[in-house]
């Protein structure tokens, strides 16, 4: 174990743990934009800077390993001023349209400006004017709001593996974009939406969520994704009994918060008029709604009319492994081995 002092308090951490992790252990809050534990640490946003005794400059706590006997201060004036100035610098090229911005209420930039008492930037000057990109069906990219933390870039590369986006240009002209600055649809992007989930500001907004409600107006419902047998945990955002957004559930052991395009953006069926909500039974050539009890009774009686070898079952990829296991068990109990699965088709 490594022992260090933060703001005069002693704390012990594992070798390799960062100053930020040590501070978290003590319940000391340190602001971060570019930090996510599951990604590589890049130390880009410089919001998490702290003062370390004998260090020449401030150090980024998210990527600096704690060392034995280290003396750290997280709340000195020097730290406060640096964070405040960096926030102010970010805000200088960020639109102040919080009144209509979808991210209001869950925006880290907004939260930190509140914490550090910034209502407008101290610096005025040029702003880059990026055209709004809403060409793909799933989310809108407003690069004017991007603070270049790079979470989306690393998420795409390190978690998804698509590596569809990277930084382009240098200095003030830097931006996150695709190879050759092509539209996202023409890149290797698979629209998993994880970049959208990781964006700390309003640069990436799911279309389904627009005008759906403020974060504080939404309730969160945890569920399992209905699309496939993986069983990813999802967090649904609900307003007036309508799903207005989806995010991967970080606590789900099946996916650790990761999603694919279907789970993330495939909610259109929920309120589609053709959606089946009850079983249908064919009566006099027409399908009519029925109760599960009646439908199952009908299936059971029909099964009795056939020899086992005349019965076949088609399992579904949308069911879980366990459900598919039970289904084949049922068929074999009936005496048939005619079982197939839609994923084979």
């Amino acid at each position: 174990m490594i022992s260090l002092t933060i703001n005069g308090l002693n704390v012990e951490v594992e070798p390799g743990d960062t100053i930020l992790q040590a501070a978290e252990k003590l319940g000391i809050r340190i602001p971060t934009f570019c930090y996510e534990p599951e990604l590589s640490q890049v130390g880009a946003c410089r919001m998490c800077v702290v003062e370390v005794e004998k260090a020449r400059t401030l150090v980024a706590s998210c990527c600096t390993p704690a060392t034995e006997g280290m003396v750290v201060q997280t709340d000195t004036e020097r730290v406060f001023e640096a964070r405040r100035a960096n926030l102010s610098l970010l805000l200088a090229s960020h639109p102040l349209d919080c009144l209509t911005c979808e991210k209001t209420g869950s925006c880290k930039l907004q939260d930190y400006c509140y914490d550090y008492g910034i209502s407008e930037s101290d610096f005025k000057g040029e702003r880059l004017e990026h055209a709004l990109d809403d060409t793909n069906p799933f989310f809108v990219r407003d690069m004017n709001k991007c603070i270049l933390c790079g979470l989306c870039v690393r998420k795409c590369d390190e978690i998804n593996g698509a590596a569809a986006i990277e930084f382009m240009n240098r200095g003030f002209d830097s931006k996150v974009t695709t190879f050759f600055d092509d539209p996202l649809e023409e890149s290797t992007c698979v629209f998993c939406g994880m970049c959208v989930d990781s964006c700390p500001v309003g640069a990436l907004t799911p279309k389904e969520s627009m005008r759906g409600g403020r974060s504080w107006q939404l309730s969160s419902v945890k569920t399992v994704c209905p699309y496939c047998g993986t069983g990813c945990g999802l967090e649904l955002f609900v307003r007036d009994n309508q799903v207005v957004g989806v995010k991967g559930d970080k606590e789900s052991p099946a996916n650790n918060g990761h999603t694919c395009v279907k789970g993330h953006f495939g909610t259109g069926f929920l309120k589609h008029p053709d959606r089946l909500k009850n079983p249908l039974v064919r009566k006099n050539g027409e399908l009519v709604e029925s109760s599960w009890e009646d439908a199952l009774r009908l299936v059971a009686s029909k099964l009795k009319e056939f020899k086992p070898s005349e019965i076949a079952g088609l399992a579904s990829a949308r069911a879980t492994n366990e459900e598919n296991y039970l289904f084949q068990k049922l068929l074999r109990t009936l005496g048939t081995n005619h079982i197939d699965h839609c994923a084979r088709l």
Partner: protein
Amino acid sequence: MYEKHVLICAGTGCISSGAIEVQDALEAELKKHNMQNKVRIIMSGCHGFCEKGPLFIVFPEDIFYCEITAEDVPELVEEHLIKGNIVDRLLYLDPTTGQRVTSHEDILFYSKQNRLVLRNCGVIDPENIDEYILRGGYLGLKRALTMDPFDVVGEVKKSGLRGRGGAGFSTGMKWEFAFNSQNNKKYVVCNADEGDPGAFMDRSVLEGDPHAVLEGILIAGQAIGSDEAYVYVRAEYPLAIRRLRTAIEQAEEYGMIGENILNSGFNFKVNIKEGAGAFVCGEETALLASIEGERGMPRPRPPFPAVKGLWGKPTCINNVETLANVPLILRRGADWFSSVGTEGSKGTKIFALTGKVNNTGLCEVAMGITIREIVFDIGGGIREGKKYKAVQIGGPSGGCMPESHLDLPVDFDSLTAAGAMMGSGGMVVMDEETCMVDLARYFLAFTQNESCGKCTPCREGTKRMLETLERITQGKGQEGDIELLEKIATTVKDSSLCGLGQTAPNPVLTTVRYFKDEYEAHIFDRRCPAGQCKELLTYYIDEELCTGCRACKKVCPADAIEGEKKEPHVIIQEKCIACGACLDRCKFDAVKTK
């Protein structure tokens, strides 16, 4: 048997001022006189005195001709090479004494120098390994190979050599870290991504004495337990790359690179990686990312490259000049090396002297020499007898040293204490006509352009500083701008990720510190004391000189000039936008500024 040797400088500077034409002319002329077997032509590396190139030196008598053109060659052959008469008019003219000087040793530019790293530059043919070996080359490697690697590290540590690329970290300690990192694969990387505007020390060493760098790399490899090196060199240095490539091939042929080097059991391979021209790739972690094929962006340290570097393996990164010092240390010993220089800064440093001095070029001086000696003795003082104002040391990361600091010793610690830094060794001299606010603006434009864009303070802070400086130089400065600059500068310096950002504010901070009155004159009096900021000048017409030709009136975009034909004209100050068009147009020097 040759009777004479003619050395023609073939550094990039002299080549661009016509050295190859001189070579062609000399070859033709020798052929004409059937003297090919009597005179040997050596195309050497850089002599440093680029201001006076192309250089043409005749041995054994050591006669130094400068600013030679192809047209001068027949006379040189006829008079000097055949008749043995010195061609007086082509000798160096000492600007202080007005006398012609025959030997380079009598030129103050050279006599004040201490050329250790540059010992072979301009003396040997860089494309011939034999010439390097004849001057004691590869003896350092030979000695190192008989020593225990740990003792080699110890020797370099004891010498007190510090990195010549910028920060001045102890080279021996760096080697020790890499030595102590346990791994089955280690790399040596030579940082030849010299990017400071106006700096060309590393280029000259690579062009003029590439084997010295290779020998340094080999010794580093043997010391830390590595078997492979990369030289990361800018693609904008084609000559350096070509000569380095030739040197590697020759060293391989001679068994200095390859398997079982000098029968010691030591194997080593050297690769060249050409950089695509990003200033930030001179930062070691960005450089490594670039070799790996990633975007050249720095990453946080620790882990330091000595622990986790190229492809995750322990890597020792040193700059060209640092590595070129190493063979000397091994050959002549740490004690000899540390006898040159000061307490904290051992050895010599090469500077690229540019700007408003009489003698621009490359000079190598012992650490501890004063700025005054460099500027006034080696540099020959300020051009046209103007007044010295400041010297910018260390490129865009460095600072401006005013007249009061002329006697500052040039070493790592003194420069850092004064707000500048050694950097890679750029030295830009400024006279009274240089505007310090405009200078800070120039360097900030450079760093903003070269910021990789990764971290907030560097990306955004340099932009806002640049905008503020632009405003001030355009006469739109406001009260509070100086404080605003200092505020951003402090944040950028204190919280940026890498050395580029941490030092980018230095030109601003030092000019505010030493030339605050110039900032105030711009902001409060709307005046540029150096008379450089166009928008702050007042233009007027000298009635005595004006012929009333109307040329200025026609070119004025603001209709601010009035006057009848053939009568003196007048500039209406309220309408003048200070664009300077009239001044450029006037043939009679009648348009003046104040």
